[in-house]
């Protein structure tokens, strides 16, 4: 069994989604996260501007 799928063994976790190895690695991939950092900042600034 893949490591990331082990937690599905618990009844409480069986009906949700758990990220696989690739999705988890992208969360801390510095290059990809630099891009996300820029995008998230733009999105948040838009929401902040709409709220003032």
């Amino acid at each position, binding site marked *: 069994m893949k490591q990331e799928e082990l937690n599905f063994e618990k009844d409480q976790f069986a009906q949700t989604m758990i990220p696989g190895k690739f999705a988890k690695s*992208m969360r801390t991939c510095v290059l990809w996260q630099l891009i996300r950092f820029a995008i998230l900042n733009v999105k948040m600034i838009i929401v902040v501007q709409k709220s003032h």
Partner: protein
Amino acid sequence: MARLVVLGGGVAGHTTATFAAKWLGSEHEVVVVTPNAKWNWIPSNIWVGVGQMSKEEVTFDLAPVYAKAGITYKQAKAVSLNPEGNESSDKAFVSIEFTEAGREGQTEEIEYDYIVNATGPKLNFGATPGLGEGSQLGEHTVSVCTADHAVHASKKLEEAIEKMKAGTRQKFLIGTGHGMCTCQGAAFEYMFNIEHELNKAGVRDMADMKWISNESFMGDFGMGGLHMKVGGYVVNSKLFAESLFAERNVSWLIGAHTNKVENGKVGYELLDGTMGEEEFDFAMLIPPFAGVGLKAYAKDGSDITSTVFAPNGFMKVDGDYTPKKYAEWKAADWPKTYQNPTYKNMFAAGIAFAPPHIISRPMSSPNGTPINPTPPRTGMPSGIIGKAVAHSVTDLILKGENAHLHEAPMTKMGAACVASAGKGIFDGTAAAMTVFPVVPDYETYPGTGRDTDYTFGEIGLAGHWIKHVLHYLFIYKAKLNPGWTLIPE
């Protein structure tokens, strides 16, 4: 010369006072009354609670900042309001009691032309037997509500880690300490920051971790949950939250009213009416919030507290407080200007204003125990409301009593929220979310109640970087360093 008194020096009070002082100039006086000597960037208390930041990194002395801004600072707590004055004077005043070292217990009456109540909450530990007494944390659990609490929590966590390294399993129980709590987000952050630290210490396999919460479903967060755009889908926050808990192997107990805390054990009642107990070795349970207990008196000395404040101690403002069924709740119920309806020179900002009702669907057990989150109004909403109130009071003073009041309804205001899930420059993560509006408006946005173009969330290192940048940015702003007004709330 007019005098504005601001009660409280947290996010809302500090924002109100500093902007009002800047806009009013030296011809008018701004007075801040706060029992604290230090300002605290509360979102970073999470990192103090896991030993990743010191108390000094999340606090700074208020006195030099207020001296620089020309604000009169009184380290004291407000005790009562006399909005009509008393028998010897028609001038409104607030009675305060000093907490400053050397002046403890001394009292003073401060006359005002305008007053803003931004006292924040009383941390009502005493609402749950065993969780604490009044606003004092008890001995069985820890807290991250204040910087001092977080320092204590960090020491206890260190002890727990040492026990695990010595081969003793530890059970962590994190969440809410009462059925009417808010601030689930802080508990959520603390849970995953502990989990991250346990992994770093190499003892995660020695820990059992459980979430206990008054939410009726995972991801409610006191906002009735939210639908957000993730990976091209619009998904409910329930799926988002459950996924993270399952991934990190943290089990949950929801719809729970914690009704008793003892040494190593909590008692709870669930939404289906069943009672149970949960053991723990380390517990951080958020207390419910209440108003700080300000009293109000009429000119003849009669008690008018119930006229000025709601039963929970928060100040009544321009919301619609008529009791209504959930199906009849509307966005229009929520306040816009935060002006007290009885005394027009009185405003409330941040947590101190009384919400017209909760945001989440009201729930109670068959025994009649209400178990539902109360509305969050911290962080960005507190700052925006504080600034709008400062603008209104400034205009009332400079342009006269018929000046237009500025509006900041939570039904037309979004919020950016970054919930840390572990600190680390290359291995940290945080859930970065925005929601628009904070209070759902089903008339404008049928379906989800919110604009899904501006409501999104994702977890990753970028979110952690943003939270870290915001830590320095907001402390820089709160210290009134050059360009502080350019940084949004």
